[in-house]
């Protein structure tokens, strides 16, 4: 299964993850 997030954010929003990286619930995905 898959979860897709689509959201509006300030243009300087940055993801802090990489494609292929394992993540767990509550871990930082990105920040402004």
């Amino acid at each position, binding site marked *: 299964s898959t*979860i*897709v997030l689509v959201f*509006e954010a300030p243009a300087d929003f940055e993801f802090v993850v990489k494609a292929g990286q394992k993540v767990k619930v*509550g871990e930082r995905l990105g920040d402004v």
Partner: protein
Amino acid sequence: LMNAWTETPTKWYPLPLAVGALLLVAIQYRKKAKRASKEVHVDEEGHEIIRLKGPWQVHVIGALPLRNMSRLWGYVNSLELPVWFRPFGFRLYALAFGCNLDEIEPSNLKEYPSLGAFFYRKLKDGARPVDPAVLVSPADGTVLHYGTIKDLHIEQVKGITYSLDALLGVERPGTPVICTHAHEHNRDLSIVDDREFANVNGIDYSLDQLIGAATPSSGSTTPTTDSSSAVEPGAPPKKFGTQVDASVEPEQSVQETLVHDASVALEMGVGASMEKRRSASGKTVKPGNALFFSVIYLAPGDYHRFHSPTAWVVEKRRHFVGELYSVSPYMAKRLENLFVLNERVALLGRWKHGFFSMIPVGATNVGSIKINFDQALRTNVRGRPPPPGTYSEAVYSAASPVLNGQPLIAAQEMGGFCLG
């Protein structure tokens, strides 16, 4: 005759004609496949018609009765297992798929009656500390892809894109809309100029009191928060792990619900939380903002409940009854429009920066999607799926009339994927 048959030497040589013909067929097929992958078919309203596109493997998989297979898989995994077999069986599953048995709750494997129950397991308190960032991961899994959305098209993998309209649905007159009353409470959180009030059963609460969950002020507005339960400003959100269902449990008091709503309103920023509903597909972003996406793939051994990635208000959901192709990275690289062909539940709402949506997408082995605050939702039901792009819609305005939707705080449990 016998002599001629046995003695005549046999000489083999390639038929130039057949080779040439085969070559022509192969060239023709490649040309047609290339043209088909570029072609976009649109309906009378100009919306792209989503069709199965990809290499021959995809068409072979597409010909299988995936939904029936998924329901059969779910039925088999709902069968009760003998108690003596459970520890051995679930340990074998955990070994095969890399599940971490130390963090599950309950830890006694005999308490899971079936593989389906084990698959929908919970985690121990504190098993997942919540990062104070503005966006956290909604699930355990692997980041398949992420980035910004350009001209309302999302990149599935390098070179393959799908349209945001197809993923989230286009507002269509006549779409069946159900209003789910997750719970009815006579509560009202009204933001009165800069003093926030909540009126519950005729008693006024100030917002700080609600956050401090203090006793109601009979008319007085001086907040009497007791320090123990007051939330220190800037304190990291409490560790989640107490699987707080977003749906308001009957025993949960109205005041607790209000505290919950108020904390979401505060975290979102009172202004944003009161903002009128924006266009559902996020087409109109505020100046200086952009649209982003990220895709997280949950492997069979991962913990399959999903949580809120931020403080936001879910205004509505659109349930697309689709196919149930596998969503493994292998298929994501080959099957175009995978996420808009599959069964999915698009949760649409807003957060402090504007439009926000979260779309759990089902797959062959996990065709059922549960949303804790939407008891009316049924996925992976029997029957032919309607044409892609068709959806049924439910609005959550009854959950919190003031916030006009279901308020969620970061890492709050929202629901999960079940087998079959």
